[in-house]
């Protein structure tokens, strides 16, 4: 039964959507999750519906042919997690919506049993009674002893938060596909092994039977056959048949088009396979059916020496027989790999959905800033491929090619599909679809897309025909295909005409009728059932004979979206326009009047007057950006930012704003922390596995930094030293104290490259010039021994390169700082209480600095003369004017930006292969001694 809370989530969004049409929305990446219950005065962090489990978990279930649906294991494997939640009941639920057409056996008109290479199905379902929502990933594994050779399994990500499942659908789907692929790879391997064993058994049996028959023939010369002989002959014949069948099965399983797993850290291969290959060369004739897939072939030919057994005439598939466990089905190696992957999923999606989204957005944005992100961010985790990409890679159709095409076509004038038609295809589709409606919708849609997306349609067609079997009780609200079509427009949220797809989806949800069944399938993703073209061509029998259920009956409605190429084009054009303006303005400098004016299309206020953000966050899809490459993407970004960044009025005004917002920020964070205890997810939510340690580090560093700026009145010049690239030496006797200070200050140190931060926590030997090149923050031991004298001597000698913070006497010797940036960065009266909050505050301001440095670095005429004859002085003047007037930098702040710009330059011009010789930049400026 669908209870009210399930529906209520969508009720208020109709008004909001209207607003969306009126108000130009801000770029999605700046938006904050919209809280759907805001109007009702509810605690946003309170539970929507009381669920019986404490936190999200992953459940693996099997539809056992002996006992029916049964839960196999949960991740985390902890009884506390699932609590009183009825796993058996839920297993029954999720296994009952298996869309997979898992027909195996003797299809009519076929001599031999056929294996169906059924693709996984992905559905979202909610069980309001249990307060559980789940992403369910069905997959089929092969088992020679199972009925029809198949064992249906499913993996489910179960959460109390429906939004989380819906919004993270793509990511979940991608991650679970990886896990499933791993399981299936292992299973194919194990199945092939099993088949080979069986074949040997059969071969042996045949030989034995043959011998017996021959003996009987010899013994019996009466000219007629005894019943015994006939029986033997029949038996022999059935064994022969069985051999052929099994050989055929083996051929099928081996010829499965092996899809390379795209992910680099994911290696489900066993290295010894290759070594064993030579040994099993004799078996190759069996597998020679497909020479084009050597990788796949050798994967299955690995077999230990095996002694054949005699097979009884009828090996009955009995219920008393013990079925293989999942581990046995998939080979231990692959099984553990899968478990690792599932644990990874669990950790990745742990926590509140807002947190996840924010994290994803910031990560995606960070990734996009390929030129500047190395400065203050830990970019190591960015190397990991985003799940979206991975997912797209998994799909047969080259989405990239489509994107490319969209980009190419974007410049050409084309028919813009009106919003009306868009709406009609999205909103007016009732859930219980009538046949004629579908008919009427279909051509309309295809006409508009026909010309340039014919292949896309083929793809979709295959999709619809896929392996969807659904009963009346299941409502499919949107297919994955429509979702991925959506992603085109999602990234274009800045365009006012495009409503937020999430809103669109939710709207559909709000209109659905109340179903009798308590299970509702909110979304399904049959896209994996797409069969790659090459596979289709080479193995038609295995595919084409697969019986399809009636496509039209299932109530599946595919709702295509607006042609993505069109809005890409529009957006691009507008972006280009703004870019041109900006570029010209940059070069001319302050003389250009429109430089200071916000650009009309792009310069929307980041938030509304009342502070309510209108657009819910969307999972970020970096690949959909119209602009490609490192620099252009920045262009796009700076194009949007420029008006604010360069408006000095804005800058001066924003100082107050940022202060006040800062305070709010700290308040709300503490509020979150207190509220978090009432939340279902009591565990901290590290959104990323690799970040977990970094998170802790950040928190601690932030806390220490807070303490530092409160304790030391000369924190500003110290931080300035770090930001301007002057090495800061923290001198002290107590190692712990020094290290603490170094940790605190390390968050202000810009990275010189993608490698580790130039921070050395503890040094006991005298410093040398080379050290200042390598490290920008050094903890140094002070000793009274003669060696200590050398240490101090070195410090005094190189004092022009150093700022020295004496932790024991609480003094600082460094150049004067009179700028304003650091004051905002490290206000000792700050109300921020928590380390992580402060860390974020620091990151915010540092990011601002980065963007200024980026602008400064990449404005051509700030560094090079406009014309040949232009004297160097005028370029210098222009540069200084830009820094002072356009970027609003005062005094020493200029040096910070100049230093960052220098780092950016070095980073950009550095060839990827070579490290480059580190250089040390310094100034001849007097130092001053600060005391408490």
């Amino acid at each position: 039964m669908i209870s009210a809370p399930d529906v209520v989530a969508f009720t208020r969004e109709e008004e909001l959507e209207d607003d969306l049409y009126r108000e130009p929305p801000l770029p999605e990446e700046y938006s904050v999750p919209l809280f759907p219950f805001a109007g009702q005065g509810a605690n946003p962090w309170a539970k929507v519906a009381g669920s019986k489990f404490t936190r999200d978990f992953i459940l693996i279930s099997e539809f056992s042919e002996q006992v029916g649906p049964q839960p196999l294991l949960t991740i985390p494997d902890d009884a506390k997690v699932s609590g009183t939640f009825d796993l058996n009941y839920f297993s029954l639920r999720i296994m009952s919506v298996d869309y997979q057409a898992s027909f195996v056996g003797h299809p009519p008109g076929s001599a031999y049993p056929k294996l169906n290479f059924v693709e996984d199905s992905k559905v979202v379902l909610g069980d309001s009674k249990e307060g559980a929502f789940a992403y369910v990933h069905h997959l089929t594994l092969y088992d020679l002893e199972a009925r029809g050779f198949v064992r249906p399994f499913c993996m489910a990500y179960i959460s109390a938060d429906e939004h989380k499942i819906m919004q993270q659908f793509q990511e979940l789907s991608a991650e679970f596909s990886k896990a499933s692929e791993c399981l299936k790879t292992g299973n194919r391997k194990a199945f092939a092994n099993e088949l080979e064993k069986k074949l040997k058994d059969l071969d042996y049996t045949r030989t034995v039977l043959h011998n017996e028959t021959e003996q009987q023939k010899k013994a019996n010369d009466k000219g007629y056959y005894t019943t015994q002989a006939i029986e033997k002959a029949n038996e022999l014949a059935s064994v022969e048949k069985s051999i052929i069948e099994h050989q055929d099965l083996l051929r099928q399983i081996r010829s499965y088009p092996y899809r390379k797993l795209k992910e680099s850290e994911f290696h489900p291969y066993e290295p010894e396979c290759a070594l064993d290959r030579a040994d099993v060369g004799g078996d190759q004739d069996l597998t020679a059916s497909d020479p084009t897939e050597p990788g796949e072939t050798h994967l299955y030919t690995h077999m230990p020496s095996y002694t054949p057994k005699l097979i009884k005439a009828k090996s009955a598939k009995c219920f008393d027989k013990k079925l293989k466990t999942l581990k046995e089905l998939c080979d231990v190696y692959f099984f553990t790999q899968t478990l690792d992957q599932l644990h990874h999923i669990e950790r990745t999606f742990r926590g509140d959905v807002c947190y996840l989204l924010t994290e994803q957005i910031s990560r995606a944005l960070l990734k996009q800033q390929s030129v500047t992100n190395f400065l203050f961010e830990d970019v190591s985790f960015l190397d990991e491929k985003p799940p979206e990409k991975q997912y797209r890679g998994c799909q047969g159709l080259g989405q990239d090619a489509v994107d490319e095409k969209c980009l190419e076509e974007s410049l050409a004038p084309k028919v813009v599909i009106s919003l009306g038609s868009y709406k009609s295809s999205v909103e007016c589709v009732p859930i219980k679809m009538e046949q004629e409606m579908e008919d009427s919708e279909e051509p309309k849609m295809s006409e508009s897309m026909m010309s340039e997306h014919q292949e896309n349609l083929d793809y979709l067609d295959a999709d619809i025909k896929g392996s969807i079997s659904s009963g009346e009780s299941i409502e499919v609200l949107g297919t994955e295909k429509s979702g991925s079509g959506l992603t085109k427009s999602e990234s274009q949220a800045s365009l006012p005409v495009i409503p937020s797809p999430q809103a669109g989806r939710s709207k559909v949800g709000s209109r659905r009728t109340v179903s009798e069944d308590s299970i509702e399938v909110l979304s399904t993703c049959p896209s994996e059932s797409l069969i790659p073209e090459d596979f289709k061509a080479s193995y038609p029998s295995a595919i084409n004979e697969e019986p399809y259920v009636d496509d039209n009956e299932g109530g599946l409605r595919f709702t295509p979206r607006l042609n993505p190429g069109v809005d890409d084009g529009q957006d691009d054009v507008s972006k280009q326009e703004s870019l041109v303006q900006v570029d010209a303005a940059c070069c001319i400098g302050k003389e250009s009047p429109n430089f200071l004016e916000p650009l009309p299309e792009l310069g929307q206020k980041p938030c509304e007057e009342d502070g309510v953000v209108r657009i819910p966050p969307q999972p970020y899809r970096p690949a959909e950006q119209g602009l490609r490459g490192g620099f252009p993407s920045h262009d796009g970004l700076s194009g949007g930012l420029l008006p604010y960044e360069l408006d000095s009025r804005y800058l001066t005004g924003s100082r107050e704003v940022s202060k006040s917002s800062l305070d709010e920020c700290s308040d709300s964070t503490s509020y979150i922390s207190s509220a978090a205890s009432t939340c279902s997810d009591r565990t901290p939510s590290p959104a990323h596995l690799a970040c977990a340690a970094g998170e802790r580090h950040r928190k601690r560093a932030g806390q220490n930094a807070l303490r530092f700026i409160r304790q030391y009145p000369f924190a500003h010049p110290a931080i300035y030293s770090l930001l301007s690239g002057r090495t800061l030496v923290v001198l002290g006797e107590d190692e712990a104290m020094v290290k603490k200070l170094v940790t605190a200050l390390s968050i202000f140190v810009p990275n010189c490259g993608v490698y580790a931060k130039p921070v050395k926590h503890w040094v006991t030997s005298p410093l040398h010039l080379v050290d200042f090149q390598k490290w920008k923050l050094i903890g140094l031991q002070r000793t009274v021994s003669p060696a200590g004298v050398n240490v101090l001597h070195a410090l005094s000698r190189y004092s022009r390169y150093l700022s020295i913070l004496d932790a024991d006497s609480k003094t600082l010797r460094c150049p004067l700082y009179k700028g304003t940036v650091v004051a905002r960065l490290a206000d000792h009266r700050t109300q921020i209480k928590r380390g992580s909050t402060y860390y974020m505050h620091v990151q915010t301001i540092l990011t601002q600095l980065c963007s200024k440095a980026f602008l400064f670095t990449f404005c051509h005429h700030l560094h090079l003369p406009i014309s040949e004859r232009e004297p160097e002085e005028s370029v210098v003047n222009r540069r200084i004017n830009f820094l002072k007037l356009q970027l609003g930098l005062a005094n020493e702040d200029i040096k910070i930006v100049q230093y960052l710009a220098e780092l950016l330059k070095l980073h950009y011009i550095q060839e990827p292969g070579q490290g480059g010789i580190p250089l040390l930049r310094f100034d001849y400026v007097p130092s001053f001694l600060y005391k408490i």
Partner: protein
Amino acid sequence: MLRWLIGGGREPQGLAEKSSVQTIGEEQIQNPYTELLVLKGHQDIVRFLVQIDDCRFASAGDDGIIFLWNAQTGEKLCELHGHTHKITAIAPFSSSDGTEEKTDLIITASADRTVIVWDCTSGRQVQKVSCFHSTVKCLTFLQRLNVWLSGGSDLCVWNRKLDLLCKTSHLTDADISALVELPKNCVAAAVGKELIIFRLSASNNGSEGWNVLEVKRLVDHQDNISSLVSVNDLTFVTGSHVGELIIWDALDWTKQASECNFWDSSVHPDVQPEIKLSQSPNETSVQHLTSDEECVFAAVGKGIYVYNLQMKRVIACQRTAHDSSVLHIEKLPNRQLISCSEDGSVRIWELREKQQLPAEPVPTGFFNMWGFGRANKQANQAAKKMQENTPVYFLELVGDLIGHSSAVQMFLYFGELGLATCSADHLIILWKDGERESSLRSLALFKKLAQNGDLQLK
């Protein structure tokens, strides 16, 4: 209070305090070197730096390895291995045999008694000679005669292909420590306290027959000659360990002038220079000499002295230019002078002239150049000028480069590419103009942007 804490606050100290090293504060507006690159590679003291072409230089030292570097990027271009002992002399030359393309070669001599010719482009060993009885201490290429000279316990003359053309008899008393080319096919060789003039002549019976003759021995120095440089075609200068500086006529090898009291502050300039050394030889030793058309610049002990050739006197000096012996000085085109010292620092000086005001009280006598009342840049009108209006020269410290942790042996001025210094701490440091480097990087950046096509609007 710790010393290092006070250290920074020091103001430039002026010239008042006697015998204390002049220091400059941390504010050095005129010092262009605001960026440095540390070049690592050597495993022992680096003693020699030679320029190969506009952007390459070679370094050599006690580890016997020669490195070739790119002076712009600091990139290590080549490592030349071949010597087993420390390098004692290094000289570059470019061979342009007729129409053939120019190849840059360097020739090195080592304590392993070998001389090797290297190809700088390929890093290959072109030729190796190992028939020496003693270590070769100096190498000179005579462009006019197209021959090589190597000086050790004897003077050998080689042709370009390093075939021995002729050599002198064994010099018993000392080895040749320095060689300088003189007009009329002569060379001056510093052998201990003596200066020997050799004349090279091609013998009559064949083009390949060469002869080297000792022409004259000059015994005016009281101690070992430590430096020998040629000023112009008519003059060359020698300096000795006891601080004698003698200007020689290059044609008839007579003493034009000499200066040997400039190390002694107590001596009144009018008193003539027969006073003997009261100071330890280290402090008065003429470590290095360099010259331009007007002046000879001498590194004497810890000080730097500027000797005007026309006025025949020291016109400016910095008695304690460094904390320790000055090892190398060089005159830059822009009236600046760079010195490096055993104390590990490099200092940039500027020769300035100060209009003396008559009312100005005479300082406590740090500069004895107050006595050079008639000193004047324009020598033709010098004598007639009134003392009040005569310009007075002084060396002003405009910057110092602190980077090496041990004695800076030598440096090489690359113009706007910067300055390379080598040191006993095994390092070579490239000092660069930060502003220039920054704009070069910008240029490279926009070049790369254009290359990547990122400048196109998409």
